[in-house]
């Protein structure tokens, strides 16, 4: 049971950590040291 079912599930669960950090970087971005340089423009997905 452990070998056939939980080992693959556990591995997928651990790999979710990788997915999580990639998604965090994409959606939240890095937390830069303050003060950040002044913001020039924020693209909210409306295109150019």
């Amino acid at each position, binding site marked *: 049971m*452990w070998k056939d079912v939980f*080992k*693959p599930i*556990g*591995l997928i*669960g*651990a*790999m*979710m*950590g*990788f997915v*999580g*950090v990639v998604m*965090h*970087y994409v959606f*939240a*971005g*890095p*937390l*830069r*040291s*303050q*003060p*950040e*340089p*002044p913001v020039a423009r924020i693209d909210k997905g409306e295109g150019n």
Partner: protein
Amino acid sequence: MATSANEYHHTPNAIDRLGRTKVYVGELMRHPVYTRFLHWMYGIFFFLALLSGFGIYAPWIFRFFTPFFGGGAMTRLLHPWFGLGFVFFFGLQVINWLGIMRWTPADTEWIKRMKTYVEHQDKMEPPTVGFYNGGQKAMFWEIVGGSIAYVITGFIMWFPEIFGRILVTISYVIHDISALIMLFGIFFHVYLSTFGEPGTIQAMTRGTVSKEWAWTHHPAWYKEMTGRDPYADMEAERERLLRND
């Protein structure tokens, strides 16, 4: 105010004397040579143990790792030695960091407000965050617990003829769960020390951090090191930047 800023005391030793830490103007000393040496030693052993462990844990996926260690049998032979190397150097780091990793009420508060940290709701950490925040300490103590589990279960699996089949089977499961938790955590550790919080990895390479990094991520430590108000210094720097525009 109660902070998590536990003091770090370190007397330079023979390892420190092998290297040097150059602190430029605008930087603060973060980690001495000894701390950095230990970090990279157990880091190397961690990844050797991890990669060889992958080949043992799931050979149907990670069979391609084993030739790097000399084949399947050699991988099984080397894996416990890599693990012992990791535990040895990490154990020295535990002794080195015992003071600054002590859990405080400020760390419990940090854990409670972790959502604001993840979502970057605050651009600077609260004034209670010292040398390490609650998340870093939690991860450290998880690795301590995991390492103890590795050693106990590892020895049982290494000498199955002494401990018997049931104990060995239980050990396999505990060993695997500890490894999966640590694998999950290592992604966050690597991410937050590189892409997630730029300027962090410099602390473990050159041993220093910028003052901006220090007041942003560890305000109580910045105050302890400089005697200055981290928030006032950040505001002064912000105004200076705006004036330059």
